[in-house]
């Protein structure tokens, strides 16, 4: 994997890291990835910024130097209006960018496959080399994972989560566990998580900045995403593609927990009284703004609900946005607000 090399990028990238590291630790989520995918993405960023930053510095430096040297009143006697072309310079200005673009293209293609949402090689890499991965994140390697991925051992079984977005909430279905939640995602640490995503209404975008990059969530279609989290903690996820009036409130909290805590959480959800049938889903899918991001649990999920949502959408099922919501801008929105 090229990602190892990127980590030891040119000194410029280190300087940049230092500079950005100086920014407030909290908030600059992209700079502090907590998962293999996000880390690959960040390292690609650093590499790209370092290379292009060099080009920009050279170009900007040239412009600044020439402006200073040849400004009127600089005393420069080198005024030469006939200097209007040079084969060497032309070759350089075409050739060098071409080489740089070639160099970056190589890494671009490589990182495309590393972060390919349908089959991210970065996760395979993280599973194959847990020690490297954890050390790269500034952590001691997890002995459980190291032994689990030793030759002959089975990698931790991936967790499957089906994600359905509505106007404007998130429904997370855990098909193997048979439970579901609204607006809360809980996953175990150092375990690959595989998402299937679809939307009941309009296009959304699944994004947890510290863990995984974006993937579109489209009605009537099913996209996939995969991630692995290397540290426990609370991370913020939200939709990143405008989906109407409740878009700004369309967030979900992502808890990355230890394996035991995860199992405990699943047991807690299984005790919830509510069941998620297609009819119940229809209630959730009515335009609703979950202002306080109140979390709801469902102890049972109708089998094949995810596919059924897609099928119904393909048949033409829509959850209409009421006219009053869009027309009447002054009165509070005539929409279900969960406060």
């Amino acid at each position: 994997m090229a990602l190892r090399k990127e980590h030891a990028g040119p000194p410029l990238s280190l300087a940049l890291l230092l500079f950005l590291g100086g920014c407030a630790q909290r908030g600059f989520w992209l700079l502090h990835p907590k998962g293999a995918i996000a880390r690959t993405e960040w390292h690609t960023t650093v590499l790209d910024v370092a290379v292009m930053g060099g080009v920009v510095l050279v170009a900007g430096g040239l412009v600044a130097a020439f402006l200073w040297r040849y400004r009127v009143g600089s005393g420069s006697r080198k005024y030469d209006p006939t200097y209007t072309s040079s084969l060497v310079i032309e070759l350089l200005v075409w050739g060098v960018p071409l080489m740089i673009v070639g160099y970056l293209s190589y890494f671009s293609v490589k990182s495309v496959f590393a972060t390919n949402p349908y089959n991210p090689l970065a996760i395979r890499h993280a599973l194959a080399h847990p020690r490297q991965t954890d050390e790269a994140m500034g952590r001691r390697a997890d002995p459980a994972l190291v032994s689990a991925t030793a030759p002959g051992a089975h990698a931790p079984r991936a967790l499957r989560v089906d994600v359905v977005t509505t106007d404007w909430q998130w429904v997370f279905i855990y098909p193997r566990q048979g439970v579901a939640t609204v607006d809360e995602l809980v996953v175990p640490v150092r375990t690959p998580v595989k998402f299937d995503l679809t939307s009941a209404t309009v296009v959304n975008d699944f994004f947890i900045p510290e863990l995984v990059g974006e993937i579109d969530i489209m009605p009537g279609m099913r996209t996939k995403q995969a991630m692995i989290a290397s540290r426990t903690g609370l991370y913020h996820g939200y939709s990143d593609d405008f989906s109407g009036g409740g878009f700004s409130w369309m967030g979900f909290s992502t808890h990355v927990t230890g394996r035991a805590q995860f199992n405990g959480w699943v047991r807690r959800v299984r005790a919830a009284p509510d069941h998620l049938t297609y009819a119940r889903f229809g209630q959730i899918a009515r335009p609703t703004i979950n202002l306080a991001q109140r979390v709801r649990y469902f102890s049972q999920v109708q089998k094949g609900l995810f596919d059924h949502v897609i099928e119904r959408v393909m048949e033409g099922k829509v959850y209409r946005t009421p006219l009053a919501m869009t027309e009447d801008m002054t009165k509070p929105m005539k929409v279900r607000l969960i406060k």
Partner: protein
Amino acid sequence: MSTEARDPLQHPEVQLARGGQYLGTYIVSLLLTGAPLWLVVHHLGTPLRLMIVVVACAAALTLIQGYFWLRLDFSRTQRWMTAAFVLFIPLFVMTIGLTAWMFATLYTRTMIPTLMHAPAFAH
């Protein structure tokens, strides 16, 4: 400064008209649309082969009609039109080709197989 003074009928673009070529192109056009039609209607070949024939006939017709009807050649009168047309061809190809390509890869990934291959929701 008046083109009006000149006889517009002497304009080279008016003089491009050629009755014989028009008629010949007409006959060839009917042949090149009729022949693939005949093959297709009578299923004379595998779909792939027939599709190749259809594409080849369309391409040939493009050249023939372009040259003999629209007079896209490199004469002084017509060269800008020809150049514009030739420059547009990659755009047609990219618009259609790249779109088809990206949706082909998208469909295989995002359309659920059971729904794709069966008339799943025929009631």
